[in-house]
């Protein structure tokens, strides 16, 4: 077939639905987060002392940290989903909440009595936390990969990592409603690790799943 014939085939019917890709991401986020919430409530349960926990600033920091990171990762994901999209300040938006939590952790550890430090870092659930966050991120991860497959990322591994991080932040946000830990250093280490696992997975599987 000559290139001109191909052009004739392509040229009729060029109109596209406006905002189709925004709707795709809203759908993915909505379904992914709802399903993750359902998994958490059924399999883990909301923490028993929620009524008291809302009075502690740490409870809110645990929700704010993944929420802010989620925004940064969403920005990066959306920008990397399209050919020639530039990251701009998205890496800064991802790094800022992590650095903020690390600074708070450092201050907490410096001010704590040496005997308390181990409890602040490891809590009682450090072994299960990162893997549970990674597991909870799976539904959102799948939904986001579906959304991204309808678009055309050209920096494929980076786009996969951004989608993984976004899924990890969603998983961490919902896990925080179950998690009984109250130490900022715990958040800075095990939550960050839990979100890094899906981000790394995203970078690894992207070359296979996101090709177009």
């Amino acid at each position: 077939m000559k290139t001109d014939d191909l052009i004739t085939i392509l040229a009729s019917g060029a109109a596209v639905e406006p905002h189709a890709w925004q709707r795709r991401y809203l759908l993915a986020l909505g379904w992914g987060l709802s399903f993750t919430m359902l998994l958490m409530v059924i399999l883990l349960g909301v923490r028993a002392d929620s009524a008291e926990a809302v009075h502690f600033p740490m409870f809110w920091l645990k929700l704010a940290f993944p929420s802010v990171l989620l925004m940064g990762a969403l920005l990066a994901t959306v920008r990397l989903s399209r050919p020639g999209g530039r990251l701009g300040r998205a890496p800064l938006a991802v790094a800022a909440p992590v650095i903020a939590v690390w600074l708070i952790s450092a201050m907490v550890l410096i001010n704590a009595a040496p005997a308390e430090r181990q409890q602040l870092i490891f809590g009682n659930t450090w072994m299960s936390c990162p893997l549970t966050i990674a597991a909870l991120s799976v539904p959102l991860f799948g939904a986001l990969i579906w959304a991204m497959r309808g678009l055309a990322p050209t920096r494929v591994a980076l786009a996969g990592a951004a989608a993984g991080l976004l899924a990890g932040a969603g998983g961490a946000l919902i896990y925080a409603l179950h998690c009984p830990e109250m130490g900022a250093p715990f958040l800075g280490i095990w939550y960050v690790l839990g979100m890094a696992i899906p981000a790394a997975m995203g970078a690894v599987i992207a070359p296979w799943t996101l090709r177009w």
Partner: protein
Amino acid sequence: MSVSEDRLKSLLVQGLAGDATAYHVFLKELSAHLRAFLRGRLTRLPDEVEDLVQETLLAVHNQRHTYDAGQPLTAWMHAIARYKLIDLLRRRAGREALNDPLDDEAAVFAASDTEPADARRDLAKLLEKLPDRHRLPIVHMKLEGRSVVEAARLSGMSEAAVKVGVHRGLKALAAMIRGER
């Protein structure tokens, strides 16, 4: 360069809003730019140029919903052409060692080449391999230039199914090209 950017961008934006004539002109002029761009970068693989022009045009069409009018067209276009070029070179890696520079974004509209060589891959043959629900809408609407209503009547499909068939068929065509190398 910037003249091409402005002209092509306005043609594409009109096309995305539903102006088929503008979109046709856009694809036509774009193919000339792509040909020159790829020919300059595939100096050792001249036979691959026209195939890659067609593959890139198909990708531009299939991904046209990812273009944001606030973004320079040059950047979007270059990213697609570069992605398809690297894809080709990667598939050929091991057989050929190429060191041509790929990072010159401005070069994508710098030159124009309206003399197509023959494509080695015959898209018409690939088209024949598509299932009827994809092939018939493309043949009736796109090749014969019929309306959705006529294509629906001729193929015995609903109008919605005809539209979906064209869309999915062109995606499937791109996937077949990817898979055949």
